[in-house]
């Protein structure tokens, strides 16, 4: 996998390690019902200024992935109980976060890497003003007076498009509208100028009209701050315009990984086809707009044998019985385009061209 060490868009062959380099990340939670394999060996890379979209239905391990980047999982003890078992490597700017001490990771959190959460109402403390929460985020990592931090908070609120930031800074989160709250959350994440920004379903809790504004804002800010952005969503439509690379996750694994252009124009994994087919589009008739993938997301405790997607896949008959016995490898079909499926590349391209494209 040396060819894609730098991610699909930024493969450049130089020996230098990418800004963010995740390899073979596994996150497992021991529970009473069994071990939950939430993330099962994913690898990706991302440079500053680039955006990676991680897409998948709920329960595919997207949030667990992002939380492990920030070191926010409670780690299991030496016996492997009471928390997440994490293995693999997460290199951020030359430092491995998996083996770093909790204190080292804490110092990077909010400073070098920051996160925007899904529901800004529950993600902000109800008892502190928006300003106080941004000020706090700034002062953990910057030894400045309260008034300096307050100026910075107002500046950030203005930057993310909050009207009258001078007065709104003293409002409580519940006094903001949903969209304004998410803007404030973004301001809080950006206050220390982080080089890696992770947004976990940042628009899922918002109205459709507000969604577009927030996405525009994130794109502008990412350009301004030149940060690496990981945009997590269950909706391919959200990443269509923003992402440089897209990784499609299913059952804790990457099933397709490539540039956004490739994943949208030449998708090769049956699950990606399903996601594209269930994408709401304005130019489609209402009744044929949504055709969700049949069946349910897999259990991550008893993952289906072979390809985890096989109980829902219409093409299992074409793989000579391998779909439910043998786990397919994530293999390159062209440089920078990885697909995990037993169907041969030629057959996949044929199916897409003949049966899928016209339905999208």
């Amino acid at each position, binding site marked *: 996998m040396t060819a894609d060490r730098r991610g699909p868009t930024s493969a450049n062959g130089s020996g230098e390690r990418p800004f963010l380099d995740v390899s073979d990340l596994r996150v497992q939670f021991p529970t009473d019902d069994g071990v939950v394999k939430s993330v099962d060996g994913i690898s990706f890379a991302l440079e500053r200024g680039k955006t990676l979209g991680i897409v998948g239905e709920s329960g595919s391990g997207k949030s667990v992935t992002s*939380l492990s980047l*920030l070191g*926010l999982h409670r780690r299991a003890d030496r016996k492997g109980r*009471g928390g997440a078992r994490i293995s693999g490597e997460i290199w951020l700017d030359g430092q491995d976060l998996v083996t770093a001490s909790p204190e080292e990771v*804490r*110092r*990077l*959190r*909010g*400073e070098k890497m*920051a*996160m925007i*959460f899904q*529901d800004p109402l*529950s*993600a*902000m*403390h*109800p*008892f502190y003003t928006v300003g106080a929460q941004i000020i*706090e*985020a700034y002062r*953990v*990592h910057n030894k400045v007076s309260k008034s300096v931090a307050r100026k910075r908070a107002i500046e950030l609120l203005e930057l993310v498009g909050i009207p009258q930031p001078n007065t709104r800074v003293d409002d*409580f989160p*519940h006094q903001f509208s949903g969209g304004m709250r998410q803007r404030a959350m973004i301001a*809080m994440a950006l206050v220390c100028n982080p080089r890696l920004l992770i947004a976990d379903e940042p628009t899922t809790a918002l109205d459709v009209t507000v969604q577009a504004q927030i996405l525009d804002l994130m794109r502008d800010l990412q350009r301004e701050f030149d940060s690496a952005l990981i945009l997590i969503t269950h909706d391919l439509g959200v990443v269509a315009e923003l992402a440089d690379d897209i990784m499609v996750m299913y059952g804790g694994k990457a099933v397709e990984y490539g540039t956004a252009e490739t994943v949208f124009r030449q998708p090769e994994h049956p699950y990606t086809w399903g996601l594209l087919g269930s994408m709401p589009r304005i130019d489609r008739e209402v009744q044929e707009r949504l055709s969700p993938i049949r069946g349910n997301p897999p259990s991550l405790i008893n993952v289906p044998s072979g390809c985890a997607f096989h109980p829902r896949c219409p093409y299992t008959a074409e793989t000579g019985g391998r779909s439910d016995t043998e786990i397919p490898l994530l293999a390159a079909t062209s440089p920078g385009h990885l697909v995990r499926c037993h169907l041969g590349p030629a057959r996949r391209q044929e199916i897409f061209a003949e049966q899928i494209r016209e339905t999208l």
Partner: protein
Amino acid sequence: MLTFIVRRLFAVVGLLLVVALVTMVIFYEMPQWGGQTPATMAVQYVGKQPSPAAIQGVIHRFGFDRSFPVQYIDYIRTIVTGTTFSDGTQDIACHAPCLGYSFRNYQQVWPTILSDLPVTLSIAVGAGVLWLFFGVASGLASAVRKGSLLDRASMVTALLGISLPVYFLAPLLSLPLAYRWSILPAPGSYVGILSDPGQWFLDMILPWTCLAFGLAALYTRLTRAGMLDVLSEDFVRTARAKGLSERRVIFKHALRAALTPIITIFGMDFATVLGGAVLVEITFSMKGIGFLAITSIQNGDFPMMMGVTLFAAAFIVLANLLVDVLYAVADPRVRL
């Protein structure tokens, strides 16, 4: 906020009027439904061979010769305006708030309550500090180290605390500490805080401990459950994501949210204790409000019973009001 408080104060008055009505029905009317007559009730207050005139006098003093509504209105009016009683030999001026006159111990109700209040107040304040502090501290530690030895030990202690009544705990502690080794004063000893603060403190240790133990146990469980809830909240994860130290995450973010409902429960429990820590006062023979309530019930001292009940009720409804106001101050989402 101000209009809320004023409106609630009116409600408080209305509620107390109802409490007075209900207690009056219970203490004055219900015995008569059970076959008692004013005469049989009055007879207890007169000597061995009561003369009809003496009985009539008592009936008149209690107001049993008037209709119930008149008695009730008289009682309320007396609270506001005061009155003059006659115990048969002399007139006694009873100033507002006049809660009546006890013909049992020849004392006015309100001053008696006021003079017994410091004892109850001593018990309540000390025990309140103890149970709130230890309850919250051990609940917090349990929640943060959930499943650890410390957590399990504190849960067992809490279970013990909840199941041990004061009258069991009191001898358990005082037999060794007070009687065997004389480290602490024996139950029954009490001096006011003003006359000897040091001795007062020593005297109070056992009553405080006995009362606080069970309540601390309850607050341990409340705090633990509340903290566990809050620790899984998104805003705690956000606090961690900002890179705050774990200490700051726990105290400034999680505890701040978990404590708000606990403080309001504390307000109610504290008010209940102020209305008489009955078991502790009886067990340690401390003449506080609870002790007064029990003795006046035993003596059939109607005015005293009425007075103490109203007093305790007033504490609870006022504490309720205070708690609501505090809640609004603590939680910016609540608007009054």
